[in-house]
């Protein structure tokens, strides 16, 4: 997916003090880092702060990136994840237990959850519903344990393969797979429970 050679060249130029190269690197990767932070930490302001911290860290430690040991995005994701762990430890998360009932009642019918997700030709109403659905999923994600949350974010939102996720999380691939299964299932249970509460 990533052009390793181009990334390595860009990193080398950054280390040599090329500010344009650094800007290009930030432009290329900030969306990814921001999205991981947003989905893990939950809020846009935390995501913004954390993304800045990630790039400050990268700027200071760029010389330690070894092309031979893996793709740049894997290294970047590892730094992001480590900062998220620190952030999680520092901030005592206040778990919200009451806010998932924002989902409209008409969606809470008996059809399978996966079929209810709007996937084409959204009108204004469907768009609003899709936004509310997105908010509900995002909130449910915040209620997963950090281990399950980070794994499903990397797999289903960042499309990373099992091996790279295992590298980032420093756990065996089997553990990654098991966490993905449990994370997905737990999320579905949380959302289904919410729908049942609404009914």
């Amino acid at each position, binding site marked *: 997916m990533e052009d390793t050679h181009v990334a390595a060249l860009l990193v080398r130029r950054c280390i040599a003090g090329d500010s344009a190269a650094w800007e290009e690197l930030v432009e290329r990767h900030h969306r990814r880092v921001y999205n991981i932070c947003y989905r893990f930490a939950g809020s846009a302001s935390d995501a913004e702060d954390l993304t800045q911290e990630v790039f400050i860290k990268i700027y200071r430690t760029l010389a330690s990136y070894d092309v031979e040991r893996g793709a740049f995005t894997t290294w970047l994701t590892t730094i992001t994840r480590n900062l998220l762990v620190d952030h999680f430890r520092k901030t005592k998360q206040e778990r919200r237990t009451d806010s998932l009932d924002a989902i409209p009642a008409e969606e809470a019918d008996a059809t399978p959850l996966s079929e209810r997700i709007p996937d084409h030709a959204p009108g204004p109403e469907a768009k609003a519903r899709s936004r509310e659905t997105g908010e509900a999923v995002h909130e449910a994600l915040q209620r997963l344990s950090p281990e399950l949350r980070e794994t499903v974010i990397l797999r289903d939102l960042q499309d990373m393969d099992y091996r790279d996720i295992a590298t980032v999380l420093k756990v065996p691939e089997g553990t990654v797979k098991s966490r993905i299964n449990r994370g997905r299932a*737990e999320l579905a249970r949380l959302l289904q429970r919410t729908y049942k509460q609404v009914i």
Partner: protein
Amino acid sequence: MQCLEFDALLSQAIDGSLSGEKLGSFEAHGRECRACGELLQEAEAGRSWLKSLGEIAPPPSLVTNILLRTSGVPRRARGNGLSSWLERLQEGAVAIVSPLAAAARQPRFAMSFGMAFFTLSATLSLVGVRLRDLRHLDLRPSAIRRSYYETSGRVVKYYENIRFVYEIESRVRQLKQATTPAEQQLDKQENHKGRENKSDRSGQPKQQEQRNYSQEGDQPVFAFLPDDPPVVPGATYRRLV
């Protein structure tokens, strides 16, 4: 197949990367074992929910802030932010100015454009604005609005003043016309016009001169303009708008 093996293959099965005999026995266990069947359904549903989440756009200031806190080198001109705003403004100015400049190059317009510019700068200097002061101008929208109203206020006042002078002059002339013989009156008119053109340095006489060319007869212009504003200040006022 055991439940443990089913769990190990679950994510690959959902990815669609399971096939053949393995897939067959996986599906068979899913049907036979209630717990594993439920897990499969839930995991599939959870994946669909997650896949429904789109990418979130970071705030536009994020890259700028990162660069300020790292290299300290500001962001180059891009498709968004202040720099592109300036770029767009520049493009807009060029789009407006170049057709005007093209028109101004045509001989029949060159004169009027030259006159208009002369008039504008003359009026500005009359109301106390010097072109070299323009670079000290405060360009905040509120400041621009304030100085616009101040300037246009002064233009209006100036315009009222010269209108007053002209009216007095024309009344005096009317009085003289009524009291002096015809021949003498003609001479006086000629003298008066000559003097007027020489003494006025504001640039308006030129405009009035031009206007005079299209005027019928040789009556003094201003006597007939009590309600029709003299061209110059009025035109300048409109230009400022």
